[in-house]
């Protein structure tokens, strides 16, 4: 071989430890396991960082557990979301919060009645993207004990 050497191969390899998770990272993961997504809200500008990074880069202040916020998810236990057809109504209402009945026993046709919040605590009108809702006026719904309504009777209604 008489050609001059023009190239040199160099395979480099550097090993690193997998970084240990930070305390904040561990806490975030623990909350995820509980179906909870948390963030940190900057005490100065109010911006919420999800996942939390332990500081606000805009205000350059550290954020801590005292600044922890949920991402709208307030429930921690299993719950039922139900579609109700009120007597005399042709449109349905979506509600959460059934009390006095096990989740497994909730069924189509179950007759329920409103459990009202005390007078004075029924809040203001709440408006959401789907229009006016019941807000906090009705705390929950409970079975009346009456016989179930047949499915056929529920066939015609407007969503």
């Amino acid at each position, binding site marked *: 071989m008489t050609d001059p*050497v023009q190239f040199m191969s160099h395979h480099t390899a550097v090993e*690193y430890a997998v970084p240990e998770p930070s305390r904040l990272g561990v806490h975030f993961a623990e909350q995820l396991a509980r179906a909870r997504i948390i963030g940190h809200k900057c005490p100065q500008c109010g911006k919420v960082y999800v996942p939390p990074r332990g500081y606000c880069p805009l205000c350059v202040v550290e954020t801590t557990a005292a600044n922890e916020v949920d991402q709208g998810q307030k429930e921690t236990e299993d719950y039922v979301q139900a579609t109700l057809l009120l007597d005399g109504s042709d449109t349905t209402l979506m509600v959460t919060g059934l009390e006095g009945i096990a989740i497994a026993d909730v069924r189509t046709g179950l007759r329920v009645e409103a459990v009202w919040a005390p007078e004075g605590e029924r809040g203001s009108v709440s408006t959401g993207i789907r229009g006016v809702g019941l807000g906090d006026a009705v705390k929950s719904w409970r079975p009346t004990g009456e016989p179930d309504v047949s499915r056929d009777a529920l066939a015609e209604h407007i969503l």
Partner: protein
Amino acid sequence: MWKLEFPYRRSVGPVIGAFLTGLRDRRVIGVRTAGGRVMVPPFEYDPETGEPASEMVDVASAGVVERAAWVPEPLRTHPLDRPFAWALVRLDGADTALLHAFDCGSADRATAGTRVRIRWRAETVGHLSDIECFEPEPA
């Protein structure tokens, strides 16, 4: 652990290239500076003056240890996987020293002034590792 790997392939230019080509042929080639100093390994510029150096010269494959440091526990990236000494060796004909492993066998043999010669690898490719290591020159 995670690993970061880069498969580099570097161009070597005429001066370093001449040195590596020489190694492939089991010859040691240095470069003479304008001031007459022979550098092994060769560099493209005289580090004292900054002037380009390009006059290639042959030097011997044997020389003297100028400085040695014993390694009781080699790293996996070192040239040898048994205890050895790093050595700065001034080959006969050179004015600077070449760094490589010296397979001297024991710490008390890692001494300046020892005469050594290159142990060439069975297959040479044009790389510094064509020199497997230095070994004591037979008397």
